[in-house]
């Protein structure tokens, strides 16, 4: 699992303050010399006890927030005490300190920030709004990313990432799905980014967006050909569908009871291995895979239920010990979620919100 707190990427304080995606206004009040300092965490810290001199747990590369509570503490101090508190606090080499509610920082604070080259930033928003905006920006800018070779399609709201060797027919499958009214997200190159908790999203590289390459036809613009309902800019990846050449020597999954997982950016994404052969209508198969995925999401597992029924017919109740089953446990599914990787998140199986799609 990816460490959701500490990111492999970093941003400078200057980049964050100037980022148009922030949505709130930040004004640098002092310490401009330190705008090159780095932020390496997606979560802020409220300075609280650090101002009292208790520095344990304070991480300089996290954005520090001085909110109403901290301000009320500081205003209760004498100017001398405030200077003392500020000297200790700003001596920690902090990357960024944000004062919220548009409060004009105390002169002692400004002086210390300037002297130590610590960027002191004022936000006009309340702490809650400021923190929400900063978290959203950091989640986006510091998200772990990777690029995958494959095709991402939104089928009935389920994100299917088609992978497999070149010329196995990934793009053709995607085109078939588009013809059935589904939506293309990215062809060939899928830029993936991690979002907490435990989700991976995919999108097209800006240059390739809405385009698909079909051998014999060349590069096509799906948006121009099919309209806006046939494309989608971004989609969460729900299932990895690995297309493989049909081989008579390989045993394919015939039951659908055992789950396979593929690691994408540290997240376990369910994987289907589907053999391709002339005469197998891949569009239909993938459409059904998506329907089945939605069904699983709603708490139904067709294969499991089928085999449970079979079990009931084969064995008299008394022959089975309590809790024993001939059906192999399905990882992360239903009540038997005691083993293996979590299906999506540790928060279990509830219906996913529309927003996270």
């Amino acid at each position, binding site marked *: 699992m990816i460490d959701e707190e500490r990111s492999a990427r970093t941003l400078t304080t200057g980049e964050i303050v100037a980022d148009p995606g922030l949505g709130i206004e930040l004004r640098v009040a002092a310490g401009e010399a330190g705008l090159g300092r780095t932020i390496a965490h997606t979560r802020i810290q409220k300075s609280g006890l650090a101002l009292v001199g208790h520095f344990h747990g304070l991480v300089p590369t996290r954005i520090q927030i001085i909110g109403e509570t901290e301000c009320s503490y500081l205003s209760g101090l004498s100017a001398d005490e405030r200077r003392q508190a500020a000297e200790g606090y700003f001596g920690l080499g902090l990357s960024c300190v944000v004062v919220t509610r548009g409060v004009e920082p105390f002169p002692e604070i400004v002086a210390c920030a300037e002297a130590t080259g610590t960027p002191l930033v004022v936000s006009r928003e309340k702490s809650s709004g400021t923190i929400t905006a900063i978290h959203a920006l950091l989640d986006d800018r510091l998200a772990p990313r990777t*690029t995958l*070779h494959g095709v991402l399609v939104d089928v009935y709201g389920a994100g299917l990432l088609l992978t497999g060797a*070149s010329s196995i027919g990934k793009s053709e499958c995607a085109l078939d799905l588009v013809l059935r009214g589904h939506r293309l997200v990215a*062809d*060939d*190159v899928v830029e993936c980014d991690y979002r907490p908790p435990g989700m991976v999203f995919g999108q097209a590289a800006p*240059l390739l967006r809405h*385009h698909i*390459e079909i051998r014999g036809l060349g*590069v096509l613009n799906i948006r121009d050909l099919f309209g806006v309902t046939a494309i989608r800019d971004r989609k969460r990846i729900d299932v990895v569908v690995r297309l493989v050449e049909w081989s008579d020597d390989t045993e394919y999954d015939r039951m659908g009871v055992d789950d396979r997982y593929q690691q994408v950016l540290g997240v376990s994404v369910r994987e289907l291995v589907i053999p391709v052969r002339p005469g197998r209508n891949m569009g239909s198969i993938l459409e059904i895979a998506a329907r089945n995925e939605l069904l699983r999401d709603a708490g139904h597992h067709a294969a499991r239920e089928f085999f449970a029924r079979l079990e009931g017919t084969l064995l008299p109740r008394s022959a089975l010990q309590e809790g024993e089953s001939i059906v192999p446990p399905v990882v992360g599914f239903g009540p038997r979620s005691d083993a293996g990787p979590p299906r999506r998140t540790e928060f279990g199986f509830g219906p996913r919100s529309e927003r996270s799609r």
Partner: protein
Amino acid sequence: MSSVTDRFEIVNVLGLHARAATKLVQLASRYRCEILIGREGQSANAKSVMGVLLLCGAKGTFVDVTATGELADEAVRRIGELIASKFGEGE
């Protein structure tokens, strides 16, 4: 499995444009081995036109070609020759 890597400079005026990328992809697709082409940390499957186009390899940039598997060394060498020959465009 053997893996071969080499670095080549793009020397033709138009760089890895559509026609050049197509030639490269066609050549790469003749080999069964896995071939990746990368530039400045970006990496693409050499058998995918879109991926290779996305590298935006202009004249003077260097690309790293890595092949893994059957005939990997020959694949890398032939791709290098194609790039050095300015994709047969003569400029």
